[in-house]
């Protein structure tokens, strides 16, 4: 069976459609699944039919779930200096992290809102296709030594924005269990919903000031990129902003009126 056929059959038998994910990435990941499980594509499809929990495993393996606290410190300090001063004046601020995975960037942004003293008027939404990752996001507990760059990134951003805050102000560190946990005052605000950008209806009704959509569409073909960006930006206020990954661009064939300022796009 070809991978293309496998993905088509998977989309017929499960709620998930990966047909328009970009080839190189998905081929490599499915190859790895075949090696890890020692199963053919036919066998994997069969197992999906017999054991519904296997679907979650497949989603885990197909999707890329890596994320970091304060990935790209220069991006965060740029947003802090250039975008957030304009937002600060609003009475209510809504942020949507589309494809938030285990939530590190959700908390990254909240820390910056806390730095600005506007966290109380923020509404924070995280969505992801992967239920296992959303559970991690809600828990806000991350492996410490595996993520040793967190502290450096945190310090770099705080230095850039001229803050004296310490990592310990936002995280409880548990050396014995080798974890860091997001402090409760941050954890109570964000709402995390399962949402597949490709197939589902949006799980919330708000209009959004800033959409974070970082390092997600690199896994999509261009037609899917455009479809998804349309969905995301329909929910944005006029003048709202879209933050992509550092090496991502809106597709050249995307039709929409946006102006790019360094690290983000603003909807005209």
């Amino acid at each position, binding site marked *: 069976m070809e991978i293309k056929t496998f993905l088509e059959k998977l989309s017929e038998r499960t709620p998930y459609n990966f047909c328009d994910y*970009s*080839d*190189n*990435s998905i081929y490599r990941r499915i190859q790895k699944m075949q090696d890890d499980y020692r199963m053919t594509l036919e066998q994997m499809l069969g197992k999906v039919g017999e054991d519904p929990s296997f679907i979650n495993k497949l989603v885990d393996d197909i999707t*890329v779930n*890596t*994320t970091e606290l304060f*990935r*790209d410190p*220069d991006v965060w300090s740029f947003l802090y200096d250039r975008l957030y001063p304009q937002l600060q004046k609003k009475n209510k601020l809504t942020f949507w992290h589309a494809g938030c995975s285990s939530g590190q960037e959700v908390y990254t942004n909240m820390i910056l809102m806390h730095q600005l003293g506007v966290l109380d008027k923020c509404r924070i939404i995280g969505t992801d296709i992967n239920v296992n990752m959303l559970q991690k996001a809600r828990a806000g507990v991350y492996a410490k030594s595996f993520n040793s*760059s967190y502290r*450096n990134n945190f310090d770099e951003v705080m230095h850039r924005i001229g803050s004296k805050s310490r990592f310990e102000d936002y995280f409880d560190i548990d050396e014995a269990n080798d974890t860091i946990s997001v402090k409760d005052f941050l954890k109570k605000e964000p709402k995390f919903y399962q949402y597949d950008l490709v197939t589902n209806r949006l799980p919330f009704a708000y209009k959004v000031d800033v959409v974070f959509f970082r*390092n997600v*569409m*690199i*896994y999509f073909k*261009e037609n899917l990129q455009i479809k998804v960006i349309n969905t995301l930006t329909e929910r944005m206020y006029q003048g709202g902003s879209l933050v992509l*990954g*550092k*090496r*991502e*661009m809106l*597709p050249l064939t995307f039709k929409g009126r946006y102006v790019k300022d360094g690290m983000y796009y603003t909807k005209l």
Partner: protein
Amino acid sequence: MSKDFDKYKAVVIGGSAGSFALVLKVLSNLDKQFSIPIIICMHRLKHVRSGLVESLRMKSKLPIIEPADKQKIEAGNVYLAPSNYHMFVEFDGTISLSIEELNNQSRPSIDYTLSSASVAFRDRCIGIILTGANKDGAKGLKDIADKKGFTIVQDPLTAEVDTMPKSALRLMTPDLILSPDGIIDFLNKLV
């Protein structure tokens, strides 16, 4: 040499510890007319993320590009894997990026870049492994050799750290083992 060099669609280079100075030397000594796209995957130390591209741009005669996802690979350019992203070559001659898990403790992973280039360009690819303290890249170079591409390993005796070239030599037999000057001569003769 019996190979027909007109046919090559890309030179793909991987290196780690010690490779920055070497890449700088290669790029500053290449002929201005060198038109085969050069695709470079170098491990970067986390604390010196910035400044690398700027230094290369000052010395290189060819334009240095840190590509965006889905950017087209074009003649005469040098493409450098962006910090903290894996970089792949796609069938349609574009670059794709990924933030997925580290491979050989590395992101970018040289194996990923080289292997994807071997699939996209098959026998029309030149692969080069330079100095480095990691085995990343060895398997990728073997993939290029398996697809009948042309392969070069830096002579371990000339490498600042010889783990990477030696790992490649353990896994496969390259077409050439060259010193840094040998690599520069080789590339300039392709023009």
